[in-house]
């Protein structure tokens, strides 16, 4: 693997040895936005905290005002949503690269719903109850669904075209979410706290879930980042990538495993949150161009920003309760799907 990565790197360096033109600017923008959305996530909610309370809650652990405690509660939620967003962003970017298809995202391809169904079945039939168990069920569900959807989507002439993949994903997702509802409905008293299996929410984020999540996040991210430059070669087409010395099926497998790890673990803890992968990868691509060595890591940052902002919007729109973040991201993300569909050339559909 390493030799193939090296050769791809040398090719890439010859043509594109510099960072994209706006790289520094984009980094600065991302940093500022990240800071702003973290502040917003700490400050806004069903109770607006003041500046002093915010500072107290973060830095003065001995202060015991109500506001300071609220802020401390929100810290874990914010960190959790940053991590989930990062995972979903990278997962989406990887899926787009593996399927060589701009309209790919864990939710559009139905992978999130698959993970969700497995967790809900696990709770209903196998009495699983801890985050650790959720994750393994979710990973199994995500992996099976990903293989299934890709299998159906790549049948027939022309391989996996965007239209075929999206349709296969939408159909699978519809089937699985009917099953999720059917399993949850009779157990609604148990499932009441788990309503987020249907739409996705980061409200349940605690330090425990963050610690469970972390290993999967790190492994997925590392796999994704290391396969980035080889995925660049894959973008030239399978033949070209092979000529450049890349084992395409091995690469696809590694990148897909990374994508499934990231979105499966996220879904296990936060439910199926849609469109983050689509939004974050395209936002970075728009600013920095198609080089995956930048898109994949930076999608983590943009994904974190988008998910956290969406969570804040959901809290504000739904107050005094909250609107699940999955609903907000679908509303923001679906227009991008429409725009991408409008831009696609007829032949590539």
């Amino acid at each position: 693997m390493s030799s193939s990565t090296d050769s791809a790197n040398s090719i890439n360096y010859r043509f594109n040895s510099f960072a994209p033109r706006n790289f520094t600017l984009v980094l600065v923008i991302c940093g500022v936005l990240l800071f702003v959305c973290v502040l917003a996530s700490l400050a806004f909610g069903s109770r607006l905290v003041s500046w002093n309370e915010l500072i107290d809650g973060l830095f003065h652990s001995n202060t015991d005002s109500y506001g300071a405690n609220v802020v401390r509660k929100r810290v874990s939620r914010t960190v959790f949503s940053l991590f989930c967003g990062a995972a979903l962003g990278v997962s989406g970017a990887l899926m787009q690269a593996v399927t060589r298809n701009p309209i790919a995202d864990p939710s559009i391809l139905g992978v999130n719903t698959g993970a969700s169904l497995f967790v809900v079945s696990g709770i209903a039939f196998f009495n699983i109850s801890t985050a650790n168990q959720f994750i393994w069920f979710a990973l199994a569900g995500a992996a099976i669904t990903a293989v299934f959807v890709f299998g159906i989507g790549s049948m027939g002439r022309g391989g996996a075209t965007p239209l075929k993949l999206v349709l296969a994903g939408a159909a699978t997702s519809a089937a699985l979410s009917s099953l999720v509802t059917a399993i949850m409905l009779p157990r609604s008293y148990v499932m009441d706290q788990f309503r987020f299996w249907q739409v996705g929410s980061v409200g349940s984020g605690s330090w425990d879930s963050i610690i469970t999540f972390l290993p999967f996040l790190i492994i997925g991210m590392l796999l994704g980042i290391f396969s980035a430059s080889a995925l660049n070669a894959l973008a030239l087409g399978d033949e070209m990538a092979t000529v450049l010395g890349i084992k395409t099926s091995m690469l696809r497998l590694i990148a897909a495993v990374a994508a499934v790890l990231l979105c499966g673990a996220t879904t296990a803890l936060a439910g199926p949150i849609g469109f983050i992968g689509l939004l974050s990868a395209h936002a970075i691509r728009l600013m920095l161009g198609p080089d995956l060595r930048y898109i994949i890591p930076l999608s983590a940052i943009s994904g974190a920003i988008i998910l956290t902002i969406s969570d804040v919007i959901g809290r504000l729109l739904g107050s005094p309760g909250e609107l699940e973040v999955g609903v907000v991201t679908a509303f923001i993300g679906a227009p991008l799907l429409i725009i991408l569909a409008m831009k696609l050339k007829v032949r590539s559909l």
Partner: protein
Amino acid sequence: MINNNSVKFIMAGRRKRRRRWILVTGLLAGLAFILCWTMLLLGNTIYPVNEVIRVLLGEELNGVSFAVNTIRLPRMLTGLLAGFAFGIAGNTFQTMLRNPLASPDVIGITAGSSAAAVFCILILHTSGAVVSIASVIAGLATVLLIYIFSRGRTFSIGRLILVGIGIQAMLNALISYLLLVGAQQDIPAALRWLSGSLNGSQMHELPPLSVTVLIFAPIIIMLGKHLSMLELGEQMATSLGINTDKTRILLIVSAVTMIALATATTGPIAFVAFLSGPIAKRLVGVGLSNAIPAGLVGVNLVLAGDLIGQFAFDVRYPVGIITGILGAPYLLFLLIRMNRKGDL
């Protein structure tokens, strides 16, 4: 030159297809009739046929009258009318766009009507005519939006379906938001508006839906021949003497009105509009208009789905969950077949 023998051959084929059409339609109608009666007879208590008939003829029977007149009859009639509307309207879109995936519930038209109905009922607290009108307008607006977004330089059905899926995702998010604000996550209400249900059907909700079906279903059925000519393609249809634009607009308005009213009454019952057309076509075969068979398949799906949902399990599932679980595998099967044939 067409000689006598080939005329005979063509006529024989025609007769054969017509016989098959009549047979299939008759069987579907018979099945629908049986399901309607089952809906009236079954429930917490099973009443004998003669008692139900006496109640329907206007007699007052203790207990039976209430159960049949206020619960079972409205439920059955709503399912009947909504199923017919979904089936016939779905088939119209699928035939007109020449793709089974282009059904109103796949490309988001149903979600548009549903969102409007939810907005009127839960936020504005209106009912009756306002809800009906709003859902029709929203349905037509959704069609227009999908058309504008998918027009492009050259028309492509694939793009239309992708745009429709995007619009549907957005509208469903909007519905979830409205449910949160309006119903405080009242789960029965949520299920009704997200997947469709016959629970809580009432007699006074029926008139708008029945009037719509009585007006627009005949229009679509009468235009059936034109619809099959449209299926041959724009140029062929024009040369056969059809004003394609006028026909198409009339068909779209009729189909959307039926879909909208049915959705405003029952919520978007999952996949009925999508399933009815292809199933009817399978049964009837090609060559004859399958508007009526599609409508009847819709009726059978809704009524059978509701019966299964009510009585097959320990829990009562709304009909939309049942049709959703039945419909999605068929969608996958259809996709696999289309992919193999290279239709996509």
